[in-house]
């Protein structure tokens, strides 16, 4: 009767064998097996033609020939070094911030540094490969600088991040008029992936203060201000982005005095900012509602008035809670910027369409659109993956 406790059961081998795994996960029951077979057939039916198309039928030369167009559009070739500088600055600033804030986490850092190496493996010309690899150099320098033990570096990194965007836009747009060191490059010449990213970045930056103001307005107890904010938010959210783009494209020139001429890209910027602001307002409102009443009451008890309560107690907490949502809003905006193609601007999709208009590349629609889709996929998936990892490791969004 007594079984000795030292009598050890045989290890549950089945759990670890391939067959056991298959049985549990794929062929648990008859229904399960049928599902598995259907799934295998589906995978095969989808994958086989796609792969054989991708490796033998597709003419990828259309991409290689027009790579510069896809990346920066009609941006003048002799000014391209400015785009590279902007990228290097980005690498340096991100490296510096990483070095100042993230201690340990070597693996994630290597992954980040690995991205340019991976890109350099793609079939580019040797010069471009070197230019891409130089990104790592700047990133690495930034990290080394940031790692120095200086308590002020954390603040400096935030300041450098904030400064980065205006500096980058000035570098791309130019500063010194027609001639000189940084001649102006008109926004209508910005194009390709650069324009897509700029539209999304500028849209999110400018919509941030407007969105916060609208969210506060919506929460306000003053009826006129809250009605106004609700009206703006619901109006913008109730119509498709394309109608807002269209409206700005046709009506902004009418709204402004006749002397002021606005370029098409700028009109798109305005429309995207307005659109993004309404959605931003709703996200920020979510953050505001997450603040417990006790915070307001405590601030009141300390003698803060309405304005100081908002500025020093509520907003800092609400905005911190909203940061993760902002990343997904940015990804959404990045995808939505493709709509400027309908206004015949040359974002990455618009470039794709215009390349297809070239008789030399007739019949390569699949190749072009698959490439554009892949670009967007890498950008959005990469961003959402990186932000998820950062959130968990840095505890952003937790209070």
């Amino acid at each position, binding site marked *: 009767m007594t079984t000795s406790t030292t009598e050890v059961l045989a290890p549950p081998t089945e759990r670890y064998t391939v067959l056991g795994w298959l049985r549990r996960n794929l062929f648990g029951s008859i229904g399960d097996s049928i599902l598995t077979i259907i799934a295998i057939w589906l995978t095969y039916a989808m994958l086989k033609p796609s792969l054989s198309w991708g490796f033998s039928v597709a003419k990828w030369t259309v991409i290689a020939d027009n790579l510069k167009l896809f990346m920066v559009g009609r941006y003048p070739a002799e000014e391209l070094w400015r785009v590279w500088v902007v990228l290097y600055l980005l690498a340096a600033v991100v490296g510096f911030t990483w070095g100042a804030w993230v201690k340990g986490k070597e693996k994630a850092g290597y992954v980040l540094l690995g991205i340019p190496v991976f890109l350099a493996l793609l079939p580019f010309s040797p010069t471009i490969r070197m230019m891409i690899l130089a990104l790592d150099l700047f990133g690495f320098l930034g990290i080394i600088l940031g790692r120095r033990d200086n308590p002020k570096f954390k603040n400096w990194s935030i300041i450098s991040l904030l400064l980065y965007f205006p500096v980058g836009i000035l570098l791309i747009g130019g500063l010194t008029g027609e001639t000189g060191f940084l001649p102006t490059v008109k926004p209508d010449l910005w194009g390709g992936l650069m324009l897509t990213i700029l539209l999304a970045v500028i849209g999110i930056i400018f919509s941030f203060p407007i969105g916060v103001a609208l969210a506060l307005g919506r929460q306000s107890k003053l009826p006129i201000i809250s009605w106004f904010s609700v009206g703006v938010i619901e109006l913008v959210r*109730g119509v498709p982005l*394309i109608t807002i783009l269209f*409206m700005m494209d*046709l009506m902004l020139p*009418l709204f402004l005095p*006749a002397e002021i001429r606005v370029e098409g890209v700028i009109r798109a910027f305005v429309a995207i900012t307005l659109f993004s602001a309404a959605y931003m307002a709703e996200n920020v409102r979510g953050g505001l509602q997450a603040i417990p009443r006790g915070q307001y009451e405590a601030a009141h008890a300390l003698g803060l008035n309405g304005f100081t309560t908002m500025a020093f107690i509520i907003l800092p907490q609400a905005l911190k809670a909203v940061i993760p949502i902002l990343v997904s809003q940015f990804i959404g905006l990045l995808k939505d910027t493709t709509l400027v193609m309908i206004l015949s601007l040359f974002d990455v999709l618009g470039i794709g*369409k215009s390349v297809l208009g070239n008789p030399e590349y007739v019949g390569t629609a*699949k190749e072009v659109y698959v490439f554009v889709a892949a670009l967007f996929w890498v950008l959005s*998936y990469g961003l959402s993956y990186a932000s998820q990892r950062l959130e968990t490791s840095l505890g952003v969004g937790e209070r």
Partner: protein
Amino acid sequence: MAKTKYSTEEAIPFWRDERVLRVLGQIVFLVVAVSFFYYLYNNMITALAAQGMTPSFEFLGRTAGFDIGESLINYVRSDSYARALVVGILNTIYVSIFGIFFATIFGVILGVSRLSKNFLVAKLSSIYLEILRNIPLLVLLVFWYSGVFITLPRVKEAITFGPIFLSNRGIAVPWGIPTETWASYLIILFLALVVSIVVSWRLKVIGDRTGRPPLRILWVPLTFLVLAMVGWLVLPQSPLEIEYPALKGLNFTGGYVFSPEFMALLSGLVIYTAAFVGEIVRAGIMSVSKGQHEAAKALGLTSFQTLRLVIFPQAMRVIVPPLTSQYLNLTKNSSLAVAIGFPDLFAIGGTSLNQSGRAVEVIALMMGLYLLSSLLTSVFMNWYNDKIKLVER
């Protein structure tokens, strides 16, 4: 004595009285906002006057003078702008209803299969979701249109699946042509609908009384189908005659042809929105706590009953609000039809705008209509949401 300090003579001056400041602040805001909008409006009127125009909607009655590729109602180019816009509205509604229907079915399948215990099924659907959610819809639409549907073979070499023809002119399918008895059949269908509603209500009463809810989702449609079939057989002539598409000259005659534009738009909208619906459904099902599963099991419910009576009603509460916004998104996203040439409201609005030169009026009209449809959808979904909320404790 100290009391006199707070007497009315030394009340807070009005410029520091919060009640006064609130009103004043709002008045200032109103004045600034109104004068800003008046400034914009004034500029617009001046600019329009320079072109010799004043905003008015009377152009809607004029002849449109352009053709529309596909229309649910009769339309010729001599019809008015107003009728052209109605064609656009109907096309938008048409594609949105189809889109919402298929995206919901496909999305629910995706969401459920992502939670499947079957490793392969779960992985496949999660790969699908991750890919589709990170690609812009417009890229998907132009890919479907210029990469797939118009690269199909010409009509002469159309791919055939039985009576269905796939070609670059669209997809031709068999279609029912109403005969003389169609009108009486519609009455039979209506009666069948009434009977099934009565059955549904009776079953609910029985369920409430006995505590054993019958499978309404099975019995009610079955009643309807059986009655509809009996009606079909009883009538002397069958109410619909099936017409098969046939190749004649350079195009198909007979049957119904779905245009490549419509198919590209519908498939783009469906596979894109389904990915988001799938995530919502998954999140909804996962939001029901494990204890509910276990409690249902302990009560002796079968796994299907558990899903139908315990999990689903609770998951719906989480699913409906974000689902509403996905439906709204789909309707709004159907405006991207303009990029592939499907004549929806936005595309026809754009053409009318170019033809008539009435930018301000057409844009205002379009925005108003989209706003209206958004509001109507959210009113309906809020009503539905309130209805299922009653399940809550």
